[in-house]
């Protein structure tokens, strides 16, 4: 971990493409060198619908990030999302051969493979299998079973999978720009890496990343990933609702949502009107503020209700001590925290990235959280990969001494 690595994270979102260039220092330090953002076109609900246009947008964002950070980008890690991404928990088990009592690295790999031996649709591919808990001879709460003595090793994994072809589309619009794909990570997992620290994970938390086209969520309990999911509804839907409800063009609805809208109802003065300016600057149509807020409230309420239902079905609320963390561009909406609080009945925080150094304005913008999360995920992966080999070699040496005797 001595060397400083340049890590690049990209999120091809429905409303914008974000690229973050960061330098990974010692330990968990991460320094943002530069960012690039380009409005996204050719993406619907988090998935590519027009490859050529999306590729252009990715190019814009990457070249902006390159010039901002003064770094030539080659390898890129990317966040993926879409309604096709699904997840479940699975347990794998292996028996340790009797001539060898000690559990070693190979057993861990084998148990991970065993846990994957489940039916997923043939067109799907595994994205992540995240370790939850190990059990050695039925003993719970084993954090690292390597070197422990046991007959039977079991492990719970959280497995995330998605449709291969649809994932490839996102990767392609990066590869078309001549970049290499380093890692692929789901939006939800990336966001959680950006906004949660170990302590919050241990307490239990829900991270909801409400983006333009989709809302990703991930649930941590007892320090591990318990659930994750994608709901293909996001900020675009709010704008679309406003556009249909108030009969105004979509671009104007989008602007109205950002400038004037709130997800809270009953807070405005009855009869308060917002006048829309037309292109010439004269006031055009008048819209009742409460009407606007009612439309936004209904949609936001529904998003949270649907997610809350899924979370409550598997994770009891006392396991979620740290509460709910909202991130993604849509979390900038006024009143969204209050609506979430009313549904989840636990503290709701607007998450900002912690433990990263760099320009403050970027870190305080939740629009970047997924891209930063990608970088943090890669950094954590690298740390993980290096650590066990070091530990393993020491253990191996100790083991060698013992067996020689």
């Amino acid at each position, binding site marked *: 971990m001595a060397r400083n690595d340049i890590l690049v994270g990209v999120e091809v979102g429905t409303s914008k493409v974000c690229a973050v260039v960061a330098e990974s220092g010692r330990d968990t330090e991460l320094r943002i060198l530069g960012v690039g953002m380009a409005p996204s076109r050719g993406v619907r609900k988090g998935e590519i619908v027009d490859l050529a246009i999306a590729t252009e947008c990715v190019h814009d964002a990457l070249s902006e990030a390159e010039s901002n950070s003064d770094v030539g980008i080659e390898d890129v890690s990317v966040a993926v999302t879409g309604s096709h991404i699904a997840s479940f928990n699975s347990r794998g088990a292996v028996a340790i051969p009797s001539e060898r009592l000690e559990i070693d690295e190979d057993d861990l790999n084998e148990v991970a493979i065993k846990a994957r031996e489940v039916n997923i649709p043939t067109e799907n591919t595994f994205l992540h299998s995240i370790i939850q808990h190990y059990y050695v001879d039925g003993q719970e709460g084993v954090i690292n079973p390597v070197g422990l003595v046991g007959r039977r090793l079991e492990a719970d994994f959280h497995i995330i999978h998605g449709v291969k072809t649809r994932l490839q589309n996102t990767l392609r619009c990066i590869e078309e720009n001549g970049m290499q794909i380093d890692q692929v990570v789901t939006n939800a997992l990336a966001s959680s890496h950006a906004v949660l620290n170990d302590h919050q994970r241990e307490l239990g938390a829900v991270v909801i990343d409400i983006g333009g086209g989709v809302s990703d969520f991930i649930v941590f309990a007892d320090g591990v990933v318990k659930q994750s999911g994608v709901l293909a509804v996001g900020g675009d839907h709010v704008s*679309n609702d406003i556009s*249909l409800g108030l009969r105004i063009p979509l671009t104007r609805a989008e602007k109205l949502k950002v400038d004037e809208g709130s997800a809270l109802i009953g807070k405005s003065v009855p009869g308060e009107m917002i006048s829309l300016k037309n292109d010439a600057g004269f006031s055009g149509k008048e819209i009742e503020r409460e009407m606007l807020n009612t439309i936004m409230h209904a949609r936001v309420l529904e998003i949270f209700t649907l997610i809350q239902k899924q979370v409550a079905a598997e994770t009891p609320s006392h396991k979620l001590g740290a509460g709910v963390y909202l991130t993604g561009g849509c979390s900038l909406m006024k009143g969204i925290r209050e609506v979430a609080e009313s549904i989840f009945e636990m503290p709701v925080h607007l998450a900002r990235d912690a433990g990263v150094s760099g320009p403050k304005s970027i870190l305080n913008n939740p629009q970047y959280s997924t891209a930063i999360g990608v970088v943090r995920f890669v950094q954590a992966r690298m740390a993980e990969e290096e650590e066990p080999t070091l530990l393993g070699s020491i253990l191996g040496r100790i083991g060698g001494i013992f067996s020689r005797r």
Partner: protein
Amino acid sequence: MLPYPKNEIPRASLPARIIGIGNAGVQLADRLVMNSPGLAEVVAMNSDAQSLTSTVAPRKSNLGPRATRGLGAGGDPEVGFEAAQESLEEIRFAVEASSTVILLVGLGGGTGSGAAPVVAEAAKEAGAFVLALVTTPFSFEGRRRAAQAAEAEAALQRHAHAVIRFENDRMADLSSPREGISETFEAADRLLSECVASFLEMLNGDGPMPVTIGNLLSVLREGSPSALFGRGEGQGDNRAHEAVERALKSPLLDRGRMLDDAHAVIVHVGGPPTLSFSETAAIMRETSKHVPDDAHLFLSVSVTKTASSPVTVTVFGNHEGGPPSTPQTRVARPTPEPKAAPEFTPAKVAKKEVQQSPTPDQKPDPLRPSPPGRLFADDTEPTPPILSQPGVPATPPATPKKTNPAKVRQETLQFEPAARGRFEKSEPTIVEGEDLDVPTFLRARPKT
């Protein structure tokens, strides 16, 4: 395993015949001959001698050379009818000794509307399975044409074994608004000829699971005759998925959504000898996602001998609702039903009564629920008495879901045009049975 010869039913060995009647029908037949030559014997029938000279159909028959002097029926079904009566012998000759007769008719004009029922009757008498593929006029073509079309369709229902209706109004969605008019018509014709081709493939195809005429009839008889049809082809590694996706994307299925209230659906899978069971199963799984649980789902599989042929998926069904666009307005001449006709002659009374709870006399026919357009039509009349005629099998009991179709449809109607906005073209997000692309406030309102 040794293949053993099947017991050939003599009927099946007889050729299928496709008859295009009237200008639109002849054009369709032409397209069919050009697109899939050798599919079946194609006969062109018209009272307009000029259109017959330009057709490529191998057999032609000029209807009513005396009645119309070869100049066409001039949009009057009566003339068309007379012409057909005059050429009855010729018609009988055209339909005899065939297993299946498929009539292609553009309803609303003179020859098609007037002669088609006569041809259907003759074909049925000759012992063939008679299937009529009809197109209804565009709504902008006026009430009179719509009325003529409705009357002709009713007559066809009496004589043909099954009638499948393609609404021209929906055909317009097949091509983009900027495309030329000939492309639009071509797209519609292509779709219809695909439909005919897949029917014949289904009925004649060689395979482990052929579709029987009985299956076909049970799909066609239930529900309104408005057709749900989608066909897709796929090749390569992911051919099964490609084919089923394309089939479901057909505009006539409204991206699979029209299947939501289908109650009988035939899925036909055709493919090369390498077509595997798992591919078929995947296709069925994908299709059944869109079909309600209580719907009849018929699977038919046919295998061609050429290894290079693509996997084709044809989804065919009938949906519950009537056509959203065809106003079934009152026919100018008295309808053949003596009971209901006098009662509803004053248009205003009729309008009022339709919105009230149905009286015994005008109980909504479960086979042909009132189309939503009717509530807003100026002069409304009960559905043309098609299935109450003798000779047509008894109607199955209505499911509770559709006891009051008019009311349910009316509520959803006004939201329909723009309800999905920018997500119109994207894959719908359905959670717990709700389409989340439709604004929440619109969905919430009817409930509270």
